């Protein structure tokens, strides 16, 4: 039987574009604030759980133990967990089972991100999430994934971009009341969002959360320890996490099934049977405005495709029927990746305690849900927290109130001229082995063939091919070929490269579903078509390079173009 676990303190730095503080120093500021808020010292902490996103942001390997001193981990059981953007909501899950299992009574939970060291743009660190062999050669941009998913979501449910833009407005306005926020803006309007620069259609500049530096910390405790330390614990009632297919182009891009699976796991544990009645405040992951809506649907708080109109109608406003991201979210407070996720847990803690100040939602919220998302955009992490009806202890609170956050922003000039700054290239190159299945696929390209494998058990034809079926976990049964014709599953018109250098003309990445494949689509580009004429469901065909120019690469298909006489879906 798992022990009950409570959150008893929280603290955070200000989120800034570039912090003067090192990652260790940011961690310490947040950790110290959380300990002070809980009214305890580091000596009272039994174990430390930390989270921070890719090592490549910092060029520091083993970031966990690099941050160990700032995390308060000296001489203690310590672990760093990492599930990409989902990390910030996974770290308290790690702390939950450290305590629930009886291994520790008091755990310090730390999440830190310092993205500003990575040059010329932190997006470079994300390039490695794309498949080395069949996607990296296309010159992908992280924005592609979001734009392609957003386009698919909008098309599947006939959504209005204007309704989606209301999320950015709501969150940046909410953030104007958050003392740690980077991009709070009380007077922003939907017109501002719709008029902002198009980065990768349909994604515009103000649809996107900012790159940031920052740290957040919590103190979590067993029921027994919490009873001695606070008169207002906030309980972790449920936790859940789940992963979709690692082949992102094979997923249902219009609906985050992995979020539904993670939410159901957490709701079951929390005894939540009617989330729309039993959840009073939500902090879904909102790195892009449409993602908040996508995730609200996965969290079962709105029907599929219905969150945008509810948002536009004010249902998710701070004083609406279901306040969503009253903190201001990633769009407003900022997005230092792992820290941003943990900020959502801290916000639920403050909201459920009635300590959120100007951000406090009306009434007496008793239960909230927070969620984050990441890895190759397919992990869902969910935590349900609640007051269980009020104080369950007789302890008198000893800690300080949530304290004034700090962190020192560095201007561009100060960043360039900082005394003692060090520039380091990474200077690494890689040789990736294609493996058997992808090797055969690339050799097929040389001959103008699209090689697939089949699984007799689930009766799927798999593109890209694999030597084992990931669903049945058995060897695939044979090789086959599919025609290089299909339909556009989703597309974007991208105006920037990964390092944000403008592209003119823009390029048109697309997920193509080949007619003969049952696994879904794969990533390529469109050409011989005006951007305005591209549509989802359009029939397309591969245009191959001349035989003598082929090298056994995904680029042996020069691009896809509209298939005349082909049947659009």
């Amino acid at each position: 039987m798992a022990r009950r676990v409570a959150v008893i303190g929280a603290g955070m730095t200000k989120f800034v574009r570039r912090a003067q503080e090192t990652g260790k120093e940011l961690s310490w500021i947040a950790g110290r604030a959380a300990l002070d808020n809980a009214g305890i010292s580091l000596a009272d902490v039994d174990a430390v759980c930390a989270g921070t996103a890719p090592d490549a942001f910092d060029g520091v390997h083993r970031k966990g133990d690099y941050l160990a001193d700032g995390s308060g981990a000296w001489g203690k059981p310590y672990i760093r967990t990492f599930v990409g953007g989902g990390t910030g909501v996974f770290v308290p899950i790690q702390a939950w089972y450290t305590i629930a299992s009886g291994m520790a009574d008091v755990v310090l939970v730390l999440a830190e991100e310092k993205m500003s060291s990575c040059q010329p743009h932190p997006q470079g660190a994300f390039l490695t999430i794309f498949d080395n062999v069949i996607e990296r050669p296309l010159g992908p941009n992280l924005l592609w994934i979001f734009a392609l998913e957003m386009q698919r979501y909008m098309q599947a449910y006939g959504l209005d971009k204007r309704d989606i833009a209301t999320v950015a407005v709501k969150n940046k306005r909410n953030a104007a009341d958050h003392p740690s926020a980077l991009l709070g803006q009380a007077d922003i309007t939907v017109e501002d969002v719709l008029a902002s620069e198009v980065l990768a259609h349909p994604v515009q500049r103000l649809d996107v959360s900012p790159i940031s530096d920052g740290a957040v910390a919590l103190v979590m405790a067993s029921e027994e320890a919490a009873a001695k330390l606070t008169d207002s614990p906030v309980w972790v009632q449920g936790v859940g996490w789940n992963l979709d297919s690692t082949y992102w182009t094979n997923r249902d891009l219009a609906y985050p099934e992995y979020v539904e699976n993670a939410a159901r796991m957490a709701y079951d544990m929390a005894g939540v049977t009617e989330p729309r009645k039993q959840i009073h405040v939500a902090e879904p992951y909102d790195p892009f405005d449409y993602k908040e809506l996508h995730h609200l649907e996965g969290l079962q708080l709105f029907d599929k495709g219905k969150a945008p109109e509810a948002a536009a109608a004010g249902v998710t406003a701070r004083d609406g029927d279901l306040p969503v991201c009253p903190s201001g979210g990633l769009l407003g407070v900022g997005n230092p990746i792992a820290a941003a996720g943990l900020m959502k847990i801290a916000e639920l803690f403050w909201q459920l305690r009635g300590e959120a100040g100007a951000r406090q939602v009306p009434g007496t919220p008793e239960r909230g849900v927070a969620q984050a998302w990441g890895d190759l955009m397919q992990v869902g992490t969910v935590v349900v927290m609640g007051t269980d009806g009020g104080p369950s202890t007789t302890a008198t609170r000893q800690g300080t109130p949530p304290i004034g956050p700090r962190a020192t922003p560095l201007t561009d000039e100060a960043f360039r001229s900082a005394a003692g700054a060090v520039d380091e290239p990474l200077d690494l190159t890689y040789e990736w082995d294609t493996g058997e299945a992808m090797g055969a696929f690339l050799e097929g390209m040389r001959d103008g063939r699209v090689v697939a494998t089949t699984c007799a058990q689930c009766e799927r034809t798999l593109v890209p091919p694999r030597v084992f079926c990931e669903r049945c976990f058995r060897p695939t049964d044979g090789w086959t070929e599919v025609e290089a014709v299909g339909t556009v599953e989703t597309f974007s018109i991208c105006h920037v490269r990964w390092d944000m250098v403008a592209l003119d003309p823009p390029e048109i990445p697309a997920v193509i579903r080949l007619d003969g494949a049952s696994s879904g689509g794969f990533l390529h580009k469109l050409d011989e078509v005006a951007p305005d004429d591209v549509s989802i469901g359009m029939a397309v065909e591969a245009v191959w390079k001349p035989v003598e120019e082929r090298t056994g690469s995904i680029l042996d298909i020069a691009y896809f173009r509209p298939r005349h006489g082909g049947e659009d879906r």
Partner: protein
Amino acid sequence: MSRAIHGDLPVRFRYTPGVANTSFFEALRDRGVLLGSKCEACSVTSVPARMFCERCFAELSPGVECGPGGSVESFTIGHVGIDGEALDEPVAVALVRLDHADSVLMHRLLGIESPAVGMRVTARLRPQAERSASILDIEGFERE
């Protein structure tokens, strides 16, 4: 058929030194002193200075001048470079415990043919005009 696909990770990094290291480097460049920070509760002095005590999480200030003298805690003499190539001149590197400090500092040994653990050494700094707020403003440690 399996074969290699070539790729890279086209990023580089710019690290600014943070709050505590900025104090350390500016004092080194401008005043030629090695600043540490002392945690009174733990009676531990770290150099370079730190913003906080990792043992008790107390906030620290960079108020203790350490060295320039110290003793060799350990040393090594490297005969090969990072790619395994033979070096023309062996490189001596030591962990030096500066006077008044509890932590050790890694740096080069200069002109010492046969180093020994416990040997007294002292920091040799570059001339002030050449200093740039870098750990290399210390040229190395030489026999005291």
